């Protein structure tokens, strides 16, 4: 640790500390405060004083306590060993902290983010004399059974490899190569890991078009409001509407290679839930535990508020690092409102002029900066990788007109609004089909048509139209009762109820229903639409709704989400064939 004293404490107000007598400090420098070495970050400089936000509880910090500089910005360590680890908001491994501390998180603990003793099997891919530039792949480490960790040249370095170690076991501290730098002609050791400042976006070659969906296995999302790989989503919802459930379901089943799950200002038990549940769940694509592709970042609501502000950046920087290796990464941020509130609290303590509801005026800029770090990119090494961001928003009182929801809406392209009434009726996922939207429909339409359903656009449009007609009809029903409607219109209500029960509702605790492949989704939607098309024709021919509902096949359609496994969809073809037959019989009987 640096012993360079950059100043002394002048004033303490919660996590915000004013420092006086500043000599040679830099903006966003990582600092240590007081005799307990609390971690902080320098966020404002003015002549001879500075403001530091401290990432730990500041009880006991007094004026004239020393502040030490570190000569580097708040950074994360990027290298093998991050997968399956749970970190706090400034990348300290919580399991290691527990081993050296006790059940509580003590202050001033310094532990390396990556295990310094663990040896990794490194296979070099470049030779002595190779010309390399930032982001290029030096070699590989098999981090988990299914994840090859590619060791990258730090993005800002380039030069000629003067020497490189042979294949073998190395720790993240061992120099694996010597780089003769282009710029300075000096030599520089390269390691399995490198550091990167969390507030700085990692460079890429260019942004690419987003035309592949991120498959989540959640029917309402994939079929009605899909998100592209590299896309941005916001999930707003009041408490108890299932934000965390939705986030966890996506973290479990989406087809990303790496998941970064940021528990930002949420409940401790939710993190424990993920920690106990994920290792037991099996990833359907790899057959391995889900934990083997997951990184957790936990700043629970009782942990220091300033680290909450940093946790979002810590998470997305890690995600960018895996993207730079050519992977598809999904970031779950639960919840960005807590992050915004942390900004507000710190801003208030710095006595900045507030804008709406006490939030600082730079809130929208910060939100935009964060979401813009998502994208489908060509990496510096010429591969394709993506970072998709799914951010939960917790609007006060469930009111979407508040600043965080509104500003977030400006910078995302997919909106999954959670609905209180649906949640109260225990309709999960409680994503409203009326308020939600996705701007990725056209981008990923051709992928859907090729992969699952050539008629996807039309069928999706058809069911959406029915859902909207149902709302208008429901208004009539509320006034006069359903009996007043003719059967043709009541049948719309009937089909929508069927669609909600048999398709939109998805039981996260049912082994089969928790996840649906897009092929299953396409087929299920098609069957419901067959029921609608044939049924409405039948009604025109004078068949009553009671007759339709009495068909035996109806119950099979209701239960198909539970009964037909993802691996074998032939059952759905049978249901469709039987449905057509039953309709034929009904019409024949009636005629």
């Amino acid at each position, binding site marked *: 640790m640096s012993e360079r004293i950059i100043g002394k404490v*002048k*004033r*303490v*107000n*919660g996590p915000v500390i*004013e420092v*006086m007598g500043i000599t040679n400090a830099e903006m966003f420098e990582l600092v240590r405060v007081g005799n307990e070495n609390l971690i902080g970050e320098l966020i404002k400089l003015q002549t001879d004083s500075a403001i530091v936000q401290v990432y730990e*509880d*500041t009880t*006991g*910090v*007094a*004026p*004239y306590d020393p502040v030490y500089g570190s000569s580097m910005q708040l950074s994360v360590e990027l290298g093998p060993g991050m997968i399956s680890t*749970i970190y706090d908001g400034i990348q300290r491994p*919580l*399991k290691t*902290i*527990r081993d050296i501390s006790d*059940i*509580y*998180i003590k202050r001033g603990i310094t532990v390396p983010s990556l295990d310094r003793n663990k040896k990794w099997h490194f296979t070099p891919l470049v030779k002595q004399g190779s010309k390399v530039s930032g982001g290029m792949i030096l070699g590989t480490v098999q981090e988990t059974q299914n994840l090859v960790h590619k060791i990258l040249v730090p993005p800002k370095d380039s030069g000629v490899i003067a020497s490189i170690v042979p294949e073998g076991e190395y720790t993240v501290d061992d120099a694996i190569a010597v780089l003769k730098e282009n710029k300075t002609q000096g030599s520089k050791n390269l390691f399995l890991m490198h550091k990167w400042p969390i507030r700085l976006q990692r460079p890429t070659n260019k942004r690419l078009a987003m035309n592949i969906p991120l498959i989540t296995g959640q029917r309402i999302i994939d079929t009605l409001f899909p998100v592209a790989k590299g896309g941005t989503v916001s999930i707003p919802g*009041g408490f*108890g509407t299932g934000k965390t459930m939705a986030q966890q379901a996506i973290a479990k089943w989406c087809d990303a290679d790496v998941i970064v799950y940021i*528990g930002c200002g949420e*409940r*401790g*038990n939710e*993190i*424990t*839930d993920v*920690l*106990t549940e994920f290792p037991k769940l099996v990833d359907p694509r790899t057959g391995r535990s889900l934990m083997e592709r997951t990184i957790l970042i*936990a700043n*629970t*609501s*009782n*942990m220091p508020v300033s680290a909450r502000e940093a946790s979002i950046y810590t998470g997305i920087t890690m995600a960018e690092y895996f993207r730079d290796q050519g992977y598809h990464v999904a970031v779950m941020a639960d919840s960005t409102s*807590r992050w915004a*509130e942390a900004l*507000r*609290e710190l801003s*208030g303590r710095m006595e900045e002029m*507030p804008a709406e509801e*006490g939030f600082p005026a730079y809130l929208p800029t910060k939100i935009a900066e964060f979401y813009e770090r998502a994208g489908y990119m060509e990496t510096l090494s010429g591969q394709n990788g993506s970072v998709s961001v799914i951010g939960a928003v*917790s609007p*006060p*009182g*469930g*009111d979407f007109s508040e600043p965080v929801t509104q500003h977030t809406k400006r910078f995302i392209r997919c909106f999954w609004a959670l609905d209180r009434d649906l949640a*109260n*009726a*225990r309709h999960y996922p409680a994503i409203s089909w009326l308020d939600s939207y996705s701007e990725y429909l056209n981008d990923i339409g051709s992928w859907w048509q090729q992969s699952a359903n050539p008629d996807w656009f039309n069928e999706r449009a058809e069911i959406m139209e029915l859902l909207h007609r149902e709302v208008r009809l429901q208004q009539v029903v*509320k*006034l006069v*009762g*359903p*009996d007043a409607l003719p059967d043709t219109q009541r049948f719309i209500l009937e089909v929508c109820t069927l669609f909600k029960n048999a398709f939109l509702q998805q039981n996260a*605790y049912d082994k089969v229903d928790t996840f649906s492949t897009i092929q299953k989704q396409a087929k299920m939607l098609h069957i419901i639409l067959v029921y609608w098309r044939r049924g409405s024709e039948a009604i025109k021919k004078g068949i009553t709704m009671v007759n339709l509902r009495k068909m035996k096949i109806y119950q099979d359609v*209701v239960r198909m989400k539970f009964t037909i496994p993802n691996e074998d969809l032939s059952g759905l073809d049978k249901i469709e064939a039987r449905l057509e037959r039953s309709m034929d019989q009904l019409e024949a009987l009636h005629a």
Partner: protein
Amino acid sequence: MPDLNNKHLLSRREYISVDKIEGPLVFIRNTHPVGYRELIECIDKQGNVRLGIVLETSVSTVVAQVFEGTSGLTLPDTRVRFSGEPLTIAVSKEMLGRVFNGLGQPIDGGPPQRSDIELDVNGMAINPTSRQYPRDFIQTGISVIDGMNTLIRGQKLPIFSGNGLPHNELAAQIAKQAKIRGSDTEVAVVFAAMGVKHDIARFFTRSFEQSGVLGNVALFLSLADDPSIERLITPRTTLTLAEYLAFKQDMHVLVIMTDMTNYCESLREISTIRGEIPSRKGYPGYLYSDLAELYERSGMIKGYKGSITLLPILTMPNDDISHPIPDLSGYITEGQIVFEREMDGRGIYPPVAGLPSLSRLMKDGIGKGMTREDHPHLASQLFAAYSYVKDVRNLASVIGEEELTPLDCKYLEFGTQFEQKFVSQRQDEQRNIEQTLDLGWEVLRSLPVEELHRITEQEIEKYYGG
């Protein structure tokens, strides 16, 4: 160690440099370097000591809040000492059966509390990796809770109530009846009263006395006529004792805190006096973090036998659930039990609203081996049916009950049965989980079997028919 001596000496130093007194805040100038959140002692003209805590410290001025209030303090005659330590309380198992004020000082006339163990009341954040995910069912003997919003050991489940609703009765009943099946670990109740009236405190004391559990109850009372600032520390002293009992003495602790609304009001008061930028309705922006610091102290820890189950009570101002206090609480707690005034008016006790009430930990604590195998589906079906009842009632109020379809009439009947038989019970009535579930099936029988979408055929055969 000259440094330690120095600290010791400094803690004896008295300052008479109080510069300003505003509400419960005192501003002291020209002190030695004082640590953030240090405990202070304010000595007034008569020599009485009042405790306080440092809220802000700088080279020139220290701002501290005085828990016992500032009335009677004068600028020239007030002396201040800084202890050099944060506020601690001495804890021991002997505190059960006694009554304390909000700062943990005995007010029952008994001997002063002595213990070698002094703990910082602010506590520390539990490392999420050392938590144990709670999944043990607590039987409260109250159908609507056990059946529909199951309480789990280590859960934080608030009661969202309103003025004049029987939240105190329900909390007392839970404290009296709560049972963990097949467990012999000791159970203790720690009770915090913040700004409640004397007679409510007496109601709880008497109710604990009558049920013979008073020996296992520690009460921390900061009543309505005590200085409002004391309420800010009351839940912290309470939870510090609870942590000690749970994680050092292996006890299962039920913490009841009433009324969180008063706590939040005090927080707002201090924030306003300090001139902080308010967020919603004048509450400080850190209300969420502050409440989380309290609520998150509940739970279970791996390798420890004890647990802290938290039952905060808050009265929703004007019955508005979107008010910042219930709203922020709901974001932190693991569910909520919401009271409905309309049900209370119809004489239903407990008046627990069916739809907005929720227990998030229920899913992992019920079913086969924990309650009974039919519990998850039964609860889900009751919710679904009751939610439809609400729609039917709305419709009936527009078109009249006569115009309803026969099926909808059955739903109306189900709604009445559900509220009268299942939800409603006496204040001394204790139903075990089997009775509760059987009652659930009984009321479901008013619906035809085709309507039970969420129940498997086996369950229908075994329970619905019988």
